[in-house]
């Protein structure tokens, strides 16, 4: 694990880039997550609802952001984690999860970092943006 002794605002987490998003992944996530909303797996339903195609569950991207964090610190150090869904993640998108340290602070004697986190496609379009708070020791 990284040595956080000199962690400072602007430092970045090792990014996580996913393979191009497939319909198979959406089907697997539908089953594994329990989110059976047909809009993510049934193109007929998606078209009736006014979308050109199915699109990814927002929470699939949140799971990837969870991986970004747990690749960096043990999960027991994650204090808080939140996202806004700003754009739809589409089939074929190559998503990269990234994180940047916003501040290092102390809370009730615990040294913590606040991070800005996001997912974006290869064109740089941000799909999810949010923040996380992790304990540094």
């Amino acid at each position: 694990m990284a040595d956080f002794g000199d962690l400072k605002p602007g430092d970045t987490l090792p990014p996580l880039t996913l393979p191009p998003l497939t319909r198979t992944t959406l089907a697997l996530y539908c089953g594994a997550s329990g989110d059976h909303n047909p809009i993510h797996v049934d193109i007929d339903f998606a078209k009736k609802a006014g979308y050109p195609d199915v699109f990814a569950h927002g929470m699939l991207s949140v799971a990837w952001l969870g991986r970004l964090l747990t690749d960096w610190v043990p999960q027991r150090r994650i204090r808080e984690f939140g996202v806004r869904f700003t754009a739809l993640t589409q089939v074929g998108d190559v998503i990269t999860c990234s994180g940047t340290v916003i501040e290092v602070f102390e809370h009730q004697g615990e040294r913590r970092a606040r991070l800005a986190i996001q997912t974006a496609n290869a064109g740089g379009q941000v799909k999810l943006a949010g923040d996380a708070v992790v304990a540094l020791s």
Partner: protein
Amino acid sequence: MIDRRHIGLQLPPFEVDVEKGRLRFFAKATGQTDPVYVDDEAARAAGHPGLPVPPSFLFCLEMDAPNPGELRDRLGIDIARVLHGEQRFVFHGLSHAGDRLRFEQRVADIYDKKGGALEFVVRETRVTNQRGEPVADLIATTVVRNG
């Protein structure tokens, strides 16, 4: 418009078992390769009593409610019109395969933007384990597209 009288509505609490096989399936679906999330021995070596529930999976367990659409049904919302707007997790402790988690959901807020074209429903969920210990608070904001 969604009736604002639903603000404060508490849904019936429910309990969900954390199943190991389901955690492995979730790891597969999310491309998780860290052995801590799929291998019992690796989990134990990392100090876990069993496979840990990954950060966002609590939301999935919440969808294992007896009727995951209960809130939509009560508020009269069409699933084809909803989008997930925001999601937040505040963690108090980890949970693991074999735990039984209790979910207590309430409608924290309902508001609209763009003259009612978009309505927002904020649901807050308190999660505790079989020992009554706090696990997490989940805050979900659902967007309803009208018209």
